[in-house]
C-alpha cells in the first residue's frame, strides 16, 4: 500500500489494509475491575469477567479502553507486554538485529511496537531498540534487493523480514527491475501478446 494518504497521524491510515491488520494483533491485558457480561472471554458465558483475569484483546479495543477512566486515578486495565517484546527477544534485537526473525515473532512487528508504545509505558527502552534495529536492517534489505542470485543467508534474512520491510524489499526489487528493462531498451517496443500468438497458430 502506498503511504501517501494519511487522515490523522495518530490514527494511522484509515484505508491502509496493513494498518488494519496490524491493529488486529492481540495483546494480553487484565482488568482492574469486574466487567459484567464479558464472562464468555474466560469460558464463563453469562457471568462477569473477573478482576485480574488475563485476556487477549486486539489493539483497537485496547486503544478505546484507554479512554475509559477509573475513579481512583488509574487505568481500567493492566497491559502486559506481548511475548514478542519480552526481555529475551529484545536482547536478541540489541545483540544482532540482522539475524532475528521478526516475521515469526509478529508479522507487523514495528507497527505493533509503535501501537504498544502509544498505550503503554516504555519500560525497556523499546522505542530505541526498535529504531536502531530498523536502521541496521535497512542497508541489508537494500543490498539484497539489488542482488539477483539467492544465497542461503539472503533467503534466511528475507524470511525474517516483517511486513513493512517486505514491502521495502519489493519496492527495491521493482525499481532495479525497471532500470534493467530500460538499460536493455525493453521499454517502448510493441510486442504481440502471448495469447494472440497462440490463437494465430491455431487458425
Amino acid at each position, binding site marked *: *500500500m*502506498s*503511504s*501517501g494518504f494519511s487522515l490523522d497521524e495518530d490514527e494511522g491510515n484509515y484505508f491502509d489494509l496493513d494498518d488494519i491488520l496490524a491493529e488486529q494483533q492481540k495483546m494480553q491485558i487484565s482488568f482492574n475491575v469486574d466487567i459484567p457480561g464479558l464472562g464468555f472471554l474466560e469460558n464463563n458465558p453469562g457471568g462477569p469477567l473477573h478482576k485480574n483475569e488475563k485476556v487477549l484483546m486486539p489493539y483497537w479495543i485496547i486503544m478505546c479502553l*484507554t*479512554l475509559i*477512566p*477509573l*475513579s481512583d*486515578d*488509574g487505568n481500567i486495565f493492566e497491559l502486559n507486554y506481548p511475548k514478542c517484546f519480552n526481555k529475551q527477544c529484545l536482547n536478541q534485537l540489541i545483540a544482532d538485529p540482522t539475524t532475528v526473525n521478526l516475521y515469526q515473532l509478529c508479522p507487523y512487528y*514495528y507497527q505493533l*511496537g*509503535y501501537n504498544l*508504545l*502509544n498505550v503503554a509505558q*516504555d519500560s525497556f*527502552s523499546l*522505542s*530505541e531498540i*526498535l*529504531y536502531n534495529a*530498523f*536502521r541496521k536492517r*535497512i*542497508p541489508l534489505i*537494500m*543490498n539484497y*534487493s*539489488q542482488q539477483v542470485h539467492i544465497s542461503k543467508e539472503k533467503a534466511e534474512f528475507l524470511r525474517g523480514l516483517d511486513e*513493512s520491510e517486505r*514491502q*521495502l524489499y519489493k*519496492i*527495491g526489487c*521493482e*525499481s*532495479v527491475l*525497471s*532500470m534493467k*528493462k*530500460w*538499460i536493455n*531498451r525493453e*521499454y*517502448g517496443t510493441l510486442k504481440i501478446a502471448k495469447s494472440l500468438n497462440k490463437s494465430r497458430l491455431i487458425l
Partner: protein
Amino acid sequence: MALPKYVQQNVFTPAEIEFISEYEQITILPLQRMETLTLLEGTYGPFRPPITIKVPLWLAVTLKKKHKCSIQPPKWLNIDTLKKKKQKEESLETFSDLPYHYLEISTILLDCASDDIPYSDEIKILLKDIQEIRKRKTKSGLDLINSNNIQLDNLGLMEINEIRPFFSKAFNDMRKLEEVLPNSQDSQTTQSFNTSRNSAY
C-alpha cells in the same frame, strides 16, 4: 488501488525520465541543406551544412536516424574526461559533478550515434564503471542515515529516481518509529495527553 504500481509509489518510469532528458540541447552538424523546420514544439533551423546548430536531443536523434546530421557529443562525453571522473569517483567520498541527465543522454547517444563518438566502446565500459561506483556509494551512505537528512549532491535524475521509492518509504517508516522515541516531540505530547487524562479524574 487500481492505479499502476509506479503511480502509487509516486515515481517516474525510466522511460519518462528519458523523455524529460530529451529536451536537453545538443550540437549537431547537418549533412544536408534544409530549410527551417516549423514543428508543434518550436522552430528549428535553417540548417546550412558546415555550420553547427543547437537542437533538442530528440530532434538530433530523429535527424541522425535519417542520416541528415552527425551529432557532436557533449564535452563530458569523451574518454579522457570520463577517465578523470572515474578516478575522482574512486578516490573521493562524494559524487563527481556529472550532468544531471548524464545517464540518459549517454545511453541515448551511445544507442543511436555511437559512430559519432570516438572510442564509444571504451566509453560504454567507463560509464558502466562510474555508475557502479556511484551505486555503491549510495548504498554505503545508507548505513549512516538518520531520518532528518541525507546528502546526495550531484546525483543524476535517473539515479535519484531509482532509489526514490525505497528511500522515501524507509524514511517514512523510520520517522514513525522515531516519533515514539523518549526525547522526541510526539512522545511528549502523548505523555501530556496521558497525564491530563489522569488528572482530570
